[in-house]
């Protein structure tokens, strides 16, 4: 009679759970560090981030500075990636363009994550009617090809990089909603949720403090992969003339400008294309590595 059952000692459970959670994330981190492709992706992204943050100090020229004596100059020591039809240094424009791409990524993915995850959490946790309404609305948005919907939204809101960020973000909301909802459905009847309800926790509190942390893994992976999509989408929209407006440098815009001169000055389109390719690949590699690290059972 002197010893109490362990279940009656909730205080003892808490640090253990905390320790376990820490170990889970630490294990995932170790798995990620050992993932070669993910690390390659991370290094590429580190370089792009440094370019975006320190662009004004590391760019050798003013990205919009024209030099008509150096029009269409090929790659050389003076201009590593050559110059364009206005004599602007392509390397400097690519460095500045990285900041546009990352900004679009952050804002667009931020919008999609915030709204998509919230809607998914609500749909998964709430009653059937609300779930149906939200998910059918997501089905409707999902019926539009992403780029086409982004174009339509830009037609309404007007051209420009700011609206492009919003458009790309809106387009990706259904993906996050579906992932979050799926993850919530998997755990909504778990004992710890029922226990929290029994203890009188409100719905919002349960969603934010109990459900959200448990559905974070797939969302983190999707955030990384969505960055890749956002960068590709911004490039496509700018290529169409709907995103970044001249003379601001954007990789998609540079590609579009380089297209007309591809035969005689291929570097005008090759380097921006490579910049997009490597950055998108970086996010894809990192996203895949994260998926493997956070959910080793899914690994193939």
């Amino acid at each position, binding site marked *: 009679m002197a010893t109490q059952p362990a279940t009656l000692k909730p205080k003892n459970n808490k640090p253990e759970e905390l320790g376990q959670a820490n170990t889970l994330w630490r294990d995932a981190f170790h798995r990620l560090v050992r993932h070669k492709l993910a690390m390659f992706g991370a290094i590429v992204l580190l370089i792009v981030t440094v370019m975006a943050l320190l662009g004004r100090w590391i760019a050798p020229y003013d990205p919009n500075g024209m030099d008509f004596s150096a029009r269409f100059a090929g790659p050389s020591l003076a201009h590593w990636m050559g110059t364009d039809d206005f004599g602007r240094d392509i390397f400097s424009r690519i460095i500045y363009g990285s900041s546009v791409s990352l900004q679009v990524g952050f804002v667009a993915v931020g919008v999609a994550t915030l709204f998509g995850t919230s809607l998914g959490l609500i749909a998964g946790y709430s009653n059937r009617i609300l779930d149906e309404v939200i998910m059918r609305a997501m089905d409707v948005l999902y019926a539009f*090809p992403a780029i086409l919907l982004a174009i339509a939204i830009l037609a309404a809101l007007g051209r420009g990089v700011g609206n492009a960020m919003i458009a790309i973000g809106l387009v990706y909301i259904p993906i996050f909603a579906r992932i979050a909802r799926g993850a919530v459905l998997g755990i909504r009847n778990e004992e710890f949720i029922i226990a929290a309800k029994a203890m009188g926790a409100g719905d919002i509190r349960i969603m934010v403090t109990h459900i959200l942390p448990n559905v974070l893994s797939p969302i983190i992976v999707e955030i990384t992969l969505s960055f890749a999509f956002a960068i590709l989408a911004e490039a496509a929209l700018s290529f169409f003339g709907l995103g970044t407006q001249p003379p601001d440098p954007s990789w998609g815009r540079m590609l579009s400008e380089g297209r007309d001169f591809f035969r005689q000055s291929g570097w005008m389109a090759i380097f921006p294309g490579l910049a997009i390719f490597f950055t998108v690949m970086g996010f894809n590699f990192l996203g895949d590595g994260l998926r493997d690290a956070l959910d080793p059972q899914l690994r193939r």
Partner: protein
Amino acid sequence: MKYQYILQRLLLAIIVVLGVTFVVFMIVQIVPGDPARIVLGPYASDEAVQGLRERLGLNRPFFEQYGSWLLGIIQGDFGQSLLNGQEVAPQLQGRVGPSFELAMVSLLVGIIIAFPIGIISALKPGSAIDIVATLFSQIGVSIPTFWMGIVLVIVFSLNLSLLPPGGYTPFAEDPADWLAHIILPAFTAGFVSASIQTRFIRSAMLDVLNANYIRTARAKGLHERTVISRHALRNAMINIVTIIGLQITALFSGIVIVEVVFSWPGLGRLALNAVLERDYPMLQGAVFVVALMVTGVNLLIDLMYFALDPRIEFV
């Protein structure tokens, strides 16, 4: 149960299409300020702006506008182009065929590339082929579609003069010329699609190859080819078809870009031109028809499950 599933899928598709009409209708409604003023520009007279407002029905209450617009669409009336005053519907009609052809051929190209690579890499996980396949799928999804299109035009049209750089010839007019024109755009859109499909085919095959019935099939001495084609692939198909279904929307997204790069006279290019010209009725029509096509193909794929797996039930 079978008919209930079909009915439920049909009902769901109708709900989605109704939702699509609402979103498409909202394109004009969310224009900040007066859409008529934006279309006509700052120097247009107030009378002209008022005239366009009436023509677009912007003076009427919101639900009345939506109702009459929806009714028009059901009757095949998409309004008139703001650019040339012509009916939108016939122009859309002329674009559906080329877009659909490009989508289907791209899907076929994707499947032709993805199936062998996905299956071989699943049969030999960890092998050199598997690593190359994984890299292919990673690299494929990272290549900007429009960039790849441009590079292909430079190589195959401008340098090697093997294929036309763009344009379209109807199949009925000249099948050989149609084929010559569709190869580059279909390969561009299909390549990206293939790189995504490869991963899922590999994954679906790996799941199946570890199942007991495959071991049994091998143990009873069946030829490996029979084991793969009759037992493994058939069971993996249900997952593969799901993925192809999910790919349809992404494929159409790629096709919008490809149509612009290759001057393909499809709905995507029409939509983009409409945006650049602020031709809202044309844009609405093009976007609606593409979404309708995507929903239709998805419904078809949903119904295809029956042929593949008689056990399936609607949940």
